[in-house]
């Protein structure tokens, strides 16, 4: 088992990514990931979706839908780190209600 992705990311960047996840992904998917214009992204809903698949969707978007590719703003490591947060339902303090 390799290191958990994101352990290499500096803490400050992790804070920025967490903010991005909650506030900007949350604009469409809901601050608590229960969905909005975009689908819900709760761990139980993502079950069966692999980390690689989610990472690809984050980076490339989903053509034909409103989901944009975030590659201009995120590295692969960063996207993988965000996929892990979603899979683990780990949005951090701010995402909890």
């Amino acid at each position: 088992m390799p290191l958990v992705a994101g352990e290499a990311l500096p803490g400050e960047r992790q804070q920025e990514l967490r903010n991005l996840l909650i506030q900007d992904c949350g604009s469409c998917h809901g601050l608590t990931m229960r969905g909005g214009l975009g689908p819900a992204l709760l761990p139980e809903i993502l079950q069966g979706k692999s980390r690689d698949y989610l990472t690809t969707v984050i980076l490339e978007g989903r053509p034909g839908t409103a989901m944009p590719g975030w590659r201009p703003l995120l590295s692969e490591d960063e996207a993988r780190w965000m996929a892990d947060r979603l899979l683990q339902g780990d949005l951090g303090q701010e995402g909890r209600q």
Partner: protein
Amino acid sequence: MKRLAICLLLVLFAGSGSAAALRGSGDLGLVIERADSSIQIVETSGNTSIGRVDQLGDLSHASAVYSRDARYAYIFGRDGGLSKVDILSGELVQRKLQAGNSIGGAISQDGRLVAVSNYKPGGVKVFDAATLELVADIPATFGASQQRSKVIGLVDAPGHKFVFALWDADEIWVLDMSDPANPGITKFTGIGRNPYDALITPDGRYYIAGLFGEDGMALLDLWNMQAGVQRILPQYGKGEQKLPVYKMPHLEGWAVAGDLAFVPAVGRHEVLVINMRSWQEAGRIEVHGQPIFVMARPDGRQVWVNFALPDNDTIQVIDTQSLAVIKQLNPGKGVLHMEFEPRGEEVWLSVRDENRVEVYDTASFERVSSMPANKPSGIFFSARAHRIGL
């Protein structure tokens, strides 16, 4: 003796209480603090925060409308919560979880009905503004399988109407609530792929939906409904590669100056200028990023624009006579919303990632006030109470 002293004290307290309570509400407003499930109540005469109301649920993308007496705010939360807040007393009067997931609402012409547009289950629910009792439930069903569409762009219109669009169904519906017991629905189908937001002109005549799935916009003339929905600007952007859209533009706040209207282009660094007599493109203004809100100062002389990621730290101001960008401001990261004071001498900005609300003078472009707010998003002033479509 002791009892008398207590009575006197009570009288004193009651006296000071009622004196403080007597004030108008025309200079009040609210700021959504979306991460805290709270709102701040603010006043625009001295630019201060005067209170906070908590426990309002998931307020991502929350918006608000006002009762016609401008005392009560109806707040529409993402979690389907409909909250009625007394902005004079700073109290939550009532709160109802009316759906699983919702996106905004409107108040009727006579102020008696509040309608909410819902993603899940897709449709519109109409409530009694006084009691929040359900008056009408309008499922947004479409197609042979009667599936339900997410509803966006809900506005009020003259004639006790609500107008809204169906994201999944490519339809616009006009809901006539003249007789609340028998709602009338007029449907317009095939209006264009994925309407993502809509607006109504300040006179309540034209309803215009932006389309995410294709170029152009859908226009409905409510004075001539039999003419149907007309597509405008169909040639705009044809064949051009769009940029990734990190945030859906908003069409709230129709920016009108004379015969010209200003709207955000989807996936482009441009503000579109539309001639409202011909409904033809009258120009494109190159701007700093992908526009989100394009809002006119109440006198129409300036248009203020904010942007999607990664340019959401910037504001640009367009002069509506020259159609040129005359000012660029950098209030800080995450400028999410703007609200002009009723006559436009100052504008309030929510700067989400800096946890501040800033107030700028619109003539000097100087920052005149700054106040803390936790992840502020929408700002809504009570002057909206008397404006069609807001």
